């Protein structure tokens, strides 16, 4: 299976994502420059973390106009699994591939630490190998991870079970005191209505091996492998 990782100018988790897919999972992985339009035969597309275009104007605002994004959108429209990690999530929001927007963390500070995240639903290509309500310890590193959507959009998200990850405590209890950035409903990640496009602020690729402090992120990428394998059977 092939993971294609998009590289924007300012991406900084592109190599980490590539490494996690290739060296940790043993799958094929390629880096794809944002000015290209060819996803190089991707089975899975990852928009990585970082600061695409310096986060100028708004996070992800310029990146969404990169030539590769038309190909990513077409790939997603055909049902292809797309994962946006951190800045990649912000790009998906700006591109309108996921609903809502990000604003500054409520306490202003850039937050960089390992946090417990509860998996809400396992019927997406990036949670298929998880258990429902499983708690993953994943690193977050962002200044704008404060998820916002209008009350109507938020209730639609909840109604259609599109909230896929929530900030929680190690036991999986979701409460305001376990929210690191002010995100509405403790949202750490969501999916689109078709469930093939997933965005999350935590970095699974930075927690794919025990040496990194947590290997919990591995299951998110392994889910894609499992989901696609079961599709082709």
């Amino acid at each position, binding site marked *: 299976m092939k993971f294609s990782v998009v590289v924007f100018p300012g991406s900084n988790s592109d190599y980490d994502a590539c490494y996690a897919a290739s060296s940790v999972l043993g799958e094929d992985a390629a880096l794809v420059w944002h000015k290209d339009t060819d996803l190089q035969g991707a089975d899975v597309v990852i928009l990585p973390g970082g600061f695409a275009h310096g986060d100028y*104007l*708004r996070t992800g*605002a310029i990146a969404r*106009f990169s030539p590769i994004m038309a190909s990513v959108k077409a790939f997603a429209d055909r049902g292809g699994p797309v994962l946006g990690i951190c800045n990649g999530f912000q790009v998906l*929001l*700006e591109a309108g591939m996921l*609903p*809502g*927007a990000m*604003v*500054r*963390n*409520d*306490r*202003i500070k850039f937050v960089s630490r390992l946090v417990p995240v509860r998996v809400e639903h396992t019927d997406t290509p990036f949670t298929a190998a998880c258990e429902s309500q499983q708690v993953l310890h994943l690193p977050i590193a962002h200044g704008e991870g*404060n998820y*916002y*959507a*209008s009350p109507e959009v938020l209730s639609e998200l909840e109604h259609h079970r599109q909230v896929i990850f929530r900030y929680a405590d190690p036991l999986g209890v979701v409460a305001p005191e376990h929210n690191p950035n*002010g995100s509405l409903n403790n949202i750490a990640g969501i999916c689109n209505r078709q469930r093939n496009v997933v965005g999350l602020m935590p970095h699974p690729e930075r927690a794919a091996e025990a040496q990194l402090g947590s290997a919990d992120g591995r299951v998110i990428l392994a889910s894609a492998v499992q989901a696609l394998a079961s599709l082709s059977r």
Partner: protein
Amino acid sequence: MRARVYVTLKPSVFDPQGRVVADALVTLGYQDVQDVRQGKFFEVELSATDAATAKARVTEMADKLLANPVIESYRVEVLP
């Protein structure tokens, strides 16, 4: 022609930066400050020669790029 675009967070969106600036002003002794909302300001130079065209073009730009309609609203002003 020159146009100005003022982008602000919608009233329903919490503005953490504005809050910090407000707190700082109060700390400086401006006890009368009740709230601050921070926004963005753009000056766009363009080759259009009439105000109506300029306004239409810049409004389109604001919709597409300068503002994110999910969280922000904007106002366009064309300078005489």
